[in-house]
């Protein structure tokens, strides 16, 4: 198999740019639909034996003076999820609502109540954002240390690309963004980097051995050599993620969705983003001139 990846480089970058700018635009204008962990508030999940009329539940709630709430089905028509926006510090709201509904002919089984105070929500937001930046920074350092700064820039550009586009999709489709999606995002960072490193590793190796080829051809060769691995690993990871998405229940749906998108975009970005950065930074033989010894010390390993 020999695909000329670099021939489609311009088209790929154009698509990436459109997606990237669109995502940024949506994040800044529409924002993320923050889940309870980050927005703060109260959530009650109740399971009924027969499906219930959501409109009636809404009626009961608004008749009793509740405002700014959402009542939706969760997973199946038997499960009802009630979300009430931030009521500063009132931690007993969930119990109140469950008791209220039970006494109004909506007697069901309580599945969960969650209350996140406003300050916790904003702390988790800050921590999450900070964690993301720290993760990117540390990975940049590690790759720069193990490879060369041009690779590090390529890898981090790919990560930034992946993260922004996933966030953008969550924003555009108004999917709930909670702690588990943040966890998925960090796992995507790990995964996408995996891909970028495998590709970079091969490019570095080929730059040393195949001195006759130009850099664009070298990158093409490297991509083709790693292609089967890239595809197979993405496939097995997607297999388990789909298992999780379809059989893991509502609780892990956002998480698996984030990861599925992440694996797809991560695979793509390791093919195009990393390599485009390397080409535009004029990666050359000289960058590889300093002989790396770390390969040698492991040679004796299995």
């Amino acid at each position, binding site marked *: 198999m020999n695909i000329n990846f670099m021939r489609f480089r311009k088209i790929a970058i154009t698509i990436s740019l459109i997606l990237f700018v669109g995502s940024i635009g949506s994040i800044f204008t529409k924002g993320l639909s923050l889940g309870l*962990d980050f927005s703060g508030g109260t959530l009650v*999940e109740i*399971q009924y034996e027969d499906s219930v009329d959501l409109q009636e539940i809404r009626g009961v709630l608004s008749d009793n003076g509740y405002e700014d709430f959402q009542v939706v089905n969760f997973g199946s028509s038997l499960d009802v999820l009630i979300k009430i926006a931030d009521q500063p*510090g009132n*931690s007993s709201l*969930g*119990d109140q609502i469950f008791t209220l509904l039970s006494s109004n002919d909506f007697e069901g*089984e*309580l599945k*969960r*109540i*969650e*209350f*996140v*105070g406003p300050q*916790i929500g904003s702390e*988790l937001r800050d921590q999450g954002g*900070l*964690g993301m930046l*720290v*993760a990117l920074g540390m*990975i940049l350092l*590690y790759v720069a240390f193990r490879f060369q700064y041009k690779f590090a820039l390529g890898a981090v550009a790919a990560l930034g690309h992946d993260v922004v586009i996933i966030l953008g999709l969550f924003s555009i489709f108004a999917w709930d963004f909670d*702690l*588990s999606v*943040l*966890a998925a995002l*960090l*796992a995507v960072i*790990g*995964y996408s*980097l*995996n891909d970028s*490193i*495998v590709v970079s*590793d091969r490019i570095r190796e080929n730059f040393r051995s195949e001195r006759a080829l130009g850099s664009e051809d070298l990158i093409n060769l490297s991509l083709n*050599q*790693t292609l089967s*691995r890239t595809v*197979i*690993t993405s496939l*097995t*990871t997607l*297999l*388990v*993620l789909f*298992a*999780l998405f379809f*059989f*893991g*229940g509502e*609780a*892990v749906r956002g*998480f698996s969705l984030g990861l599925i998108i992440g694996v797809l975009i991560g695979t793509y970005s390791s093919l195009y983003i990393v390599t485009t950065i390397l080409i535009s930074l004029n990666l050359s033989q000289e960058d590889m001139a300093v002989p790396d010894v*770390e*390969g040698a010390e*492991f*040679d004796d*390993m*299995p």
Partner: protein
Amino acid sequence: MNKFPTWRYFVIIAVLMLGILYALPNLYPAQPAIQVAYTDSSKSADQSLLNTIREEIAKQDIEISEINLKNNNIVAQFSSVEDQLIAKTALQKALLDRVIVALKLEPTTPDWLASIGGRPLKLGLDLSGGVHFLLEVDVETALGDKVDGLLNSYRKKFRTENINYISSSISDDQVSFKFKSSEDYEKALDIFLTDTLTPTGFQFDLVEQSNISTLKVSYSEIAIKELRDYAVKQNLMTLRNRVNELGVSEPVVQRQGANRIVVELPGVQDTAAAKKIIGKTANLEFRLEAKSNASRLRKTEFDYKDERYGTAFLENDVIVTGDRVTNANTGFDESGFAQVNITLDMQGGRAMQRATNGNVGRRLGVLFVEQKSKSTLVEDEFGNEVIEQTSYIEKNIINLATVQAVLGTNFRITGVGSPQEASELALLLRAGALAAPMKFVEERTVGPSLGKENIELGMRSVMIGFLMVILFMGFYYRLFGLAANVALTSNLVLITGIMSLLGATLTLPGIAGIVLTVGMAVDANVLIFSRIREELKGGKNPHQAIQDGFSRAFVTIFDANITTLIAALILYAIGTGPIKGFAVTLSIGIITSMFTAIMGTRAIVQLMYGSRNIQELKI
């Protein structure tokens, strides 16, 4: 021929055996059990309680599969959940409030496994069901009270020393005094420098401004930190006492960060009741003993907490309540007897002064006020006996002592018995009330059905994902795929074993982490196998190709995994409960997968091809 030292086989087999050994406890299903303890935490369960329990349960025609005395509790195991519930109700009816009966799942790990540290995985609240509370200690209020107290102490001191000041105020937790003359200023400065009005020995920052005759004093950073630590620790202790009353088998009460406390109660469903007990106010009241000729309307008879002393009449007027107690500790009086030193805040001190002024020689009582719940047997509308819980307030005298002089903010209670009794009294005085108010900032309740559902769904997706990957690898790589599949299976066993051994908690995101690991772990094998294919294509002989494939792929695998590990560690640092679980399984999975996919697969491939003279390698 390929070289593969024999010792490596031994390492692999040893690690795998250990993994299997410590994963083993998870195969023994936990048994429904009840845990019984005396309500009075000072009494520990004994043989007689065990016998009573045995008799009571025997009356119900159900069988106990095992009953043991364990860490001051009695644990009785049953073969079914129905029996467990029958036994619980029966015991509660028979023993009512004398004991706390909690439902629990008792692991049935065999003794030989338990003796080497084997235990099943701990389930997080999202899998076991239960409540998680996060409480925040309001340190600001506690600090504000302290500063108020400080201002009042100095005002009083200046009055008695005849030092005139124009104004006194508090701003930003800083007490400031403005003086008329430099003479007063000097005298006041002297007091600030020499006389520590701080009963707890906290440090102060003093700002002198002699040109405008103003003195400012505030608690130092260290003092504020100490104050916060003290308030949180105090509340933590009080909370532990309260949670014990709930009868939960494995509660968690832990400090989190500077001023927060996490409370986790597995299996508890009635959050409203749990919140009431956690947030309740045990308190103290100081009252004078009633004069013998006082009218019945103005006095009340109370029991002593220690039943030996009987009862006594106290006045209905409450002088001071326990939240005015800022500190209490034990010491010894001049003749070497134990005493309790009590410090009140300024408001409390003033009230105490007014009340004791002219009442020297009378006795002062300390009442312990507790909100309690009582169970009684009542008949419901169908004529069945059910247990009804009512809450009531109980007040007991913990001490009654003669007032020797007019009391203020600092006084002592003597004649409190042995040093041990004195320290118990001090503890009650301190622990009875909270050191600072608390509020609930986060609460998560997971119903038992959701917990069960989460386990089932999680396990199902692990199985399905695992099977699909196994099928794919076997189909695509044939014999080599088989090696990778053996490695993948050992990886799952190792993750389970290590997590059980470390006592890590399994959560739903944790299960998701395991699923993800299954998908990503084969990456190492895929890298190695692709490399071997390439080496073969490049014209190397099979043995050389295997050798080079493994060694060349290693560096790549190592780099790729380290970066995922970095992401996982950061996730651990920023995540809360369940997300931490994801980070833990992901990290463990990455490490074990490196071991099984590289070392393990290598060993299997070696066993398959190592000693043979192969001409052609199918991969």
